[in-house]
């Protein structure tokens, strides 16, 4: 397994907001290598001038009338929150200290 791949996994884990242990990092890098090796088969396919498919159903963007309707009750929307205060979700501080950055 290349050192680059391990760095890639660390970079991607940071993007995905996942903290991986050393052991997880090694395992994931190994598995990513196997998967990338497998999907490399697609390189053989000639896709010049082939449009990508994002969705299989040919739909026009569905439109609806802009009709006012009651929103979800804020108490209901907050009912699952791990921590809330009045009408707000409470989270740890957003501005991080130097060592976090």
């Amino acid at each position: 397994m290349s050192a680059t791949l391990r760095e890639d996994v660390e970079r991607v884990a940071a993007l995905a907001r996942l903290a991986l242990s050393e052991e997880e990092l090694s395992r994931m890098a190994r598995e990513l290598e196997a998967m990338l090796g497998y999907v490399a088969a697609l390189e053989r396919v000639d896709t010049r001038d082939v449009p990508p498919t994002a969705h299989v159903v040919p739909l026009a963007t569905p439109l609806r009338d802009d009709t006012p309707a009651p929103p979800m009750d804020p108490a209901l929307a907050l009912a699952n929150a791990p921590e809330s205060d009045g009408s707000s979700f409470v989270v740890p501080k957003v501005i991080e200290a130097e060592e976090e950055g």
Partner: protein
Amino acid sequence: MAAAPLGTLRECREALDEGRTSSAALVEQSLARAEAHAELRLFVRLRAERARAEAQAADARRASGERRSPLDGIPLAVKDNLVRAGEETTCASRILAGFVSPYTSGVMERLEAAGAISIGTTNMDEFAMGSSTEHSVYGPSRNPWDPARTPGGSSGGSAAAVAAGIVPLAIGSDTGGSIRQPACFCGVVGVKPTYGRVSRWGLVAFASSLDQVGGFGRSAEDAAHLLDAISGHDPRDSTSIPEPAPRCADALDGDVAGLVVGLPREYYGDGIEPGVQGAVREACAQLERAGAKLREVSLPYAEYAVATYYLIATAEASSNLARYDGVRYGHRAQGAHTLSEMYRRTRSEGFGAEVKRRILLGTYVLSAGYYDAYYRKAQQVRTLIRRDFEQAFRGCDVIATPTMPETAFRLGERTEDPLRMYLSDIYTVSANLAGIPGVSLPCGFSQGMPVGLQLLGPPLEEARLLRVADAYQRTTAHHRARPPETQ
């Protein structure tokens, strides 16, 4: 003494219509049987009291001459990824532990309107990512045919609950085979409808361009009634097909005379277990004896389907699962000092290994510098796979394949080798990539384990597939076989 297995939907309905049983009695039998088979770990929670109350209401309706639908008063089971107001939905994940939905999914609304009674939610691979129901925070489900084996996945609990006679019907979801594969491994009928046929409103998203809700029954006829109950337009799902769904149950006339069944030459090559190959070939011969014509067709890009699928599915999953951040619902890591630390710890604690694996692959293929090489390339190959099917269906009415190249594997056998687990999805993922409907139905046994025949059809032709499956079942008995310990 365990409660006796429930009959098919048809048998339950006839017993209700003739006054030989009540909805309350059926629900009690269902609950008792679920408890008696707790060791199979098919349910993550039972809704006993609510189900009993709903059964009483159904019996009252019946007494007053009202019948909402063929499913009125019938017990069923629902995969743990469809939300229902006031009830817990967790997708078998720690990160959604304790989540109580503020609203009800489109599918559950339709089932309620039909009078169907959910006795509980079923075990699954976490966020529907898996082929064995082993990636569940609740532990693995077991196959009623052999408890040392997997029921398949990700809708393994739903498929096995039908196979074990706990419920006549169950709801699942299928992103790359998650209905058809467990239906195959458990010896029941599983239907994955056309993309857009059934509402995804309130289905917890895995891969939004591939996910579709469908169901399980012991016969094609039962599955048709279930599909009829949940199909149709839902304006809250912007990919929902804006037209009424024709009733599949009305299309079951037993007639396959002149029907052309396509056999893709790429699907009958090496790597199929001989017993599976034999059973599937015999099923096709049976259709031929019933008047259908067999014709070889070709799907040249079939070999690229699994690679294409895992790139697209993981990319979409990495995006969809970004919402689990510990802020609005679900698990939150304790003691984090900053928001970003809270995100990282919450997600690391809340997701299991398979979900992390797929989020990482998906994030990788969408990340700067790799997008064109992987994600865009996969979407282009997806177009070629769709065109394969369009071309094939110019020469046949349905396509018949093995659902899986093998029968149910042993628990623990593949968990250390994710790629090998993915490769077994070779016959199922194409239908999701192309958006077409697929049905798996039991067509015999290989070394005592059920074998599945997969039927694929053009978009919106669920009724055709179920008509063929029903015609097959009228002249064969494989779908009536029961797991040994549940007879």
